[in-house]
């Protein structure tokens, strides 16, 4: 037995399933699936692709070549890759094709309230969901078997709770990696091509036509029927009063709170095992569905004409972020004692690391009242009300096109700036830049080059000087690419040279041409930059104007001293000596 979190267990499952190719894009909570796969199982080819769509397409190609392939992303990332998944759904599968997708239940990592199972419904593909690390490993292997047996991509849904929970997993330490090539089909086409064939050439036995057929509705029908006998769907018949259909970690919450309930625990949440559900429904007086995320199993069960209680008793977001044992107890055991959180405890808004280059940019934008959009990057912290540096922020890679849209709508009279990280730029932001060039836009773009995807823990990007498959000659240069695309004015500045950076941004905003300011500074956390001498605040000179606090640096605190007086102080353990705060102080109170 080995202690593993869900991400480690999924990586182990990939190894034992004989995966040949793993691709994808970082995204909390599932990033570490790839990190562990790459670190521990060198037999598997791993790549962080430029974005999720590319990652999934790489896996689809590898699967067609006959090898088991894996694509890793978070649910928000699958939105980007959805078109690719639609293309793969229902098509001929050679080597098993599995998507490991992280749902941030409870918004623990700060995602929107998404649910990957919608893609199961939309594209009619199976979704498996583990409840602990052992199941995460086992279902990973099972997912590949199902993918090949029923010729379908399979989604393994993991959640922020599964990913970050450690429990024991049975491991065969002597296991040797085996990879096999399964080349059943010579073609694999999207459903559009196949359905055209199936509708027009029904019943044809011409080999050229037969080759293109893939009777995916029949595969899925067979899978749904077989699922009643799958050992990963467990019917635990106990008392007659309460029955619960559940999956994932809510299974354990249910078991703990309702030890006498009859439970149908689903390892495959889509398609549903109708016979087992009817058997449980006939056995109990009241049947509940306890599922994290959206009311998807609930709707699918109700579609079968079976009466279940779900969101009317357990209202979903925003009333509930995720299931907990407490919520089940409160609703189903109303006599249990209630516990409430102490009132008035201050909350923690996210704060940037001390010395982060984003703080410099946020500060300049705020100081000069430059309107700007933020991307999905550590810099988005500048949107929160303690900083107020940005007025527009949407999805990953969007900020350049958002700024362009604003600028064309306002006839370029007020230059709206797009700020983007290097990760977002390479992922999809580069499309926004190409778009604004050939559409003759005069927008300004700030690209923050911190040499990694900082937000997810420092994975490499196309312009990093490290990476799984890194070779110095293949490193992409942001400035060169911008130049090739046709950006008129490109400046590269070191973030810590405050005056130069300020000048560069102001010049770019004033110019009546399109421009890019590349702000360089490696991520302070990932690259553990050497610290300079800490700064401190002279309390005699400090007027408590709080300009320094509004920078949003973790090291600057407002604290009650021993005498009860509030002081603005710099935490010398956290300060890295970047000096940004001293540029904000009008009273010369902040010194090294």
């Amino acid at each position, binding site marked *: 037995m080995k202690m593993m979190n869900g991400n480690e267990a999924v990586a182990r499952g990939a190894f034992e399933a004989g995966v040949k190719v793993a691709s994808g894009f970082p995204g909390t909570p599932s990033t570490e699936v790839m990190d562990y796969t790459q670190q521990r199982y060198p037999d598997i080819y791993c790549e962080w692709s430029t974005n999720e769509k590319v990652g999934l397409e790489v896996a689809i190609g590898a699967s067609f070549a006959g090898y088991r392939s894996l694509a890793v992303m978070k649910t928000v990332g699958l939105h980007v890759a959805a078109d690719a998944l639609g293309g793969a759904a229902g098509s001929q599968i050679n080597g098993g094709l599995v998507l490991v997708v992280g749902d941030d239940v409870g918004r623990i990592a700060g995602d929107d309230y998404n649910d990957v199972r919608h893609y199961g419904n939309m594209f009619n593909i199976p979704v498996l969901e583990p409840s602990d690390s052992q199941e995460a490993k086992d279902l990973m292997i099972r997912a590949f078997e199902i993918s090949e047996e029923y010729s379908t991509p399979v989604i393994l849904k993991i959640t922020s709770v599964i990913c970050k929970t450690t429990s024991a997993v049975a491991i065969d330490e002597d296991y040797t990696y085996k990879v096999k090539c399964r080349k059943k089909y010579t073609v694999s086409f999207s459903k559009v091509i196949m359905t055209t064939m199936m509708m027009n050439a029904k019943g044809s036995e011409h080999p050229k036509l037969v080759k293109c057929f893939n009777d995916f509705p029949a595969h899925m029908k067979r899978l749904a029927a077989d699922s009643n006998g799958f050992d990963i769907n467990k019917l635990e018949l106990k008392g007659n009063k309460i029955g619960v259909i559940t999956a994932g970690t809510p299974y354990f919450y249910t078991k703990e709170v309702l030890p006498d309930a009859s439970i149908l625990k689903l390892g495959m949440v889509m398609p549903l095992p109708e016979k087992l559900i009817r058997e449980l429904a006939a056995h109990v007086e009241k049947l509940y569905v306890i599922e994290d995320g959206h009311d998807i199993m609930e709707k699918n069960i109700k579609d079968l004409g079976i009466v279940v209680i779900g969101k009317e008793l357990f209202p979903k977001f925003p009333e509930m972020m995720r299931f907990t044992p407490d919520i089940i107890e409160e609703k189903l055991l109303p006599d249990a004692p209630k516990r409430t959180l102490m009132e008035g*405890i201050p909350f923690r808004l996210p704060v940037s690391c001390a010395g982060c280059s984003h703080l410099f940019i946020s500060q300049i934008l705020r100081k000069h009242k430059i309107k700007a959009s933020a991307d999905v990057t550590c810099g988005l912290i500048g949107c929160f009300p303690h900083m107020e540096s940005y007025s527009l922020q949407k999805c990953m890679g969007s900020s350049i096109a958002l700024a362009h849209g604003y600028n064309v709508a306002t006839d370029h009279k007020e230059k709206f700036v797009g700020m983007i990280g290097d990760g977002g730029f390479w992922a999809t932001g580069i499309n926004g830049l190409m778009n604004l060039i050939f559409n003759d836009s005069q927008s300004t773009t700030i690209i923050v080059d911190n040499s990694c995807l900082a937000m997810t823990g420092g994975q490499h990007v196309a312009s990093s000087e490290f990476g799984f498959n890194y070779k110095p000659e293949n490193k992409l240069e942001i400035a060169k690419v911008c130049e090739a695309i046709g950006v008129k004015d490109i400046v590269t500045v070191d973030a810590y040279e405050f005056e130069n950076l300020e000048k560069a941004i102001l010049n770019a905003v004033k110019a009546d041409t399109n421009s890019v300011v590349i702000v360089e500074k490696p991520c302070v956390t990932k690259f553990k930059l050497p610290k300079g001498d800490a700064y401190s605040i002279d309390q005699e000179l400090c007027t408590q104007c709080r300009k320094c606090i509004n920078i949003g640096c973790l090291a600057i605190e407002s604290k009650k001293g021993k005498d009860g007086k509030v002081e603005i102080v710099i935490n010398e353990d956290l300060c890295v000596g970047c000096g940004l705060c001293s540029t904000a102080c009008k009273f010369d109170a902040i010194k090294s």
Partner: protein
Amino acid sequence: MQDTGKNIIIAGVGGQGILLFSNLLSKYYMKLGYELKISDVIGLGQRGGGVESHFRYSTKPVLSPFIKAGDVDYLLSFEQTETLRYLHCLKEDGIVFSSTFELSTSSVNTRLEKDMPESKTELIKRSGLKTFIIDPEEYKSTDFDISKMMNIVMLAIYAEFRGYSHEEMIQIVRESVPEKFIAGNIKAYEKGISIAREMTPNP
């Protein structure tokens, strides 16, 4: 085994070594043959965000990865604002170990909300629970700052309180931390033992 298992919440802020703490503790219980589930919830924000680890060990398989409010036996907290967030989760006879360290919150710093008017240390002491308050400043010496190694200090305090083998625990530390940090960690562990032996509970 007389002890059939306990529920522990370990709380603090990012950068305090909470994940290492729960990792070291899990190795101790693994050696004793317990079943375990540890859930680490890390909030948004690279640094300074709240960190919460639900740590459950038992002679029987552990079901829920999260501990229900009211089922917590021990709260081990490295930051006192975070301590307050979990007081309601303890059993009536649950025990709190809390550092007086405090990392101010961005919302209070920027006046988006007011800080609590009362002393947080006093609120913890008056919670009605048995509490041990540890002030790292009190043990700061010129050559050694325990606030940087509160995780190892807390491990020693907890081990002493539970009557566990320090020898075993130090061995686990030795096997788990990089070579260059071993000596410093052992020093912190020993400091933790001496703090634990002087500690008096409230009330």
